[in-house]
């Protein structure tokens, strides 16, 4: 039976959260502006 002595890889979760926030924040802004405009179909 072989024994793996290599160190465990670093925790990537903070990097994943940062990366998704980086792209998610502007996308959320775009979607918010879109909803404001789309509402005009029912109110305009």
């Amino acid at each position, binding site marked *: 039976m072989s024994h793996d002595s290599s160190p465990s890889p670093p925790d*990537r979760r903070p990097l994943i959260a940062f990366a998704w926030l980086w792209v998610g924040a502007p996308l959320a802004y775009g979607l918010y502006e879109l909803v404001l*405009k789309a*509402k005009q179909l029912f109110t305009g």
Partner: protein
Amino acid sequence: MSPPVAPPGWSRWLVPPAALSVHLSIGQAYAWSVFKPPLESALGLSGTQSALPFQLAIVMLGLSAAFGGTLVERNGPRWAMTVALVCFSTGFLISALGAATEQYWLIVLGYGFVGGIGLGIGYISPVSTLIKWFPDRPGMATGIAIMGFGGGALIASPWSAQMLESFGADHSGIALAFLVHGLAYAVFMLLGVLLVRVPRTERPADSGPSVLAGPQVSARSAVRTPQFWCLWVVLCMNVTAGIGILEKAAPMITDFFADTSTPVSATAAAGFVALLSAANMAGRIGWSSTSDLIGRKNIYRVYLGVGALMYALITLFGDSSKPLFILCALVILSFYGGGFATVPAYLKDLFGTYQVGAIHGRLLTAWSTAGVLGPLIVNWIADRQEEAGKHGSSLYGLSFGIMIGLLVVGFVANELVRPVNARHHVPAPREAADVARQQPESA
């Protein structure tokens, strides 16, 4: 430049945001119209002239995706994203110089030619990498990225408009806006360049079947197969049908209900256009992910078959029911987005992952063709119908009939898609390695 290989423990969930940072940026192209009125008044341009940078950018998108695909496959996604960043950002900086010096040709060259190369290389840059990381869910993975291209305009449209309001709509204000766009997009896209990695093995952990399972076909061989051209027709017909609505959405809904008791105002029509953008984006991720469950051929049967049905419903009953008109248009636009997002996974199913990015690049010429065909059909026919004294919904009856016909052609082309003949396959690296390994043992 060798592709960046992921270190041990690298998460595949870092790759979609890398792809999104590029696609959300280059998707700005669809918000070019924000710059048109200020450019026209600041530089004394006609509407046709102010559309030139966008038109050239779309032509360059098609050309660079078609001819740069093999380079992208050879040099890897980091190289491609770097090229996309440099070209897209430099395009804005050249345009800033053009606006500042009132030299419009610099804006055409910068945004249209240089920036357009960034669009094409950026569009195909993450496709094969995503498919390699997500062999179990290629539709979802490419759907996320290609949804970003739709989302890019949603961000850029209000952002650019606010910037022009702050800086002023004269030539120096436009120059400053271009400068900020160039710098901001360079920083934003840098995340993709830094994060993107190709998987260490051919099968990332917990991702199901091997990436190299099934046939592998080179880009050069793929364009010689009937399957490639069937898919070319499928994509072209599906995109043409979507553009048929998208191109004239605002005047269309106004015309349809002009003679009814509930006419649609210009403000409400703008809301309808925004809702179509949302459907387009939702279709990219929603339908493409669904294709992982029901299969690529089946989802295109839905796009093309149900799409034709939706056009028929609008033609027959659209002017009698506003909710029905809106619902059908939303479904058609969701299929339009879904068609774009699902095609890389369809290509992967047929041709494997070997050069799927390059094959995808070549297939995007169908998009360029549809970009000319769709608006031409709807605008030309609507103009002729108007000259013939028609008005309201009858302006669009003939062009919608043509759209149904085109969707049926696409449906038939999809039915003709069969597995690629084995004579086009290249030996999989694993098979080749196995053969090489077995030879000394048997010797």
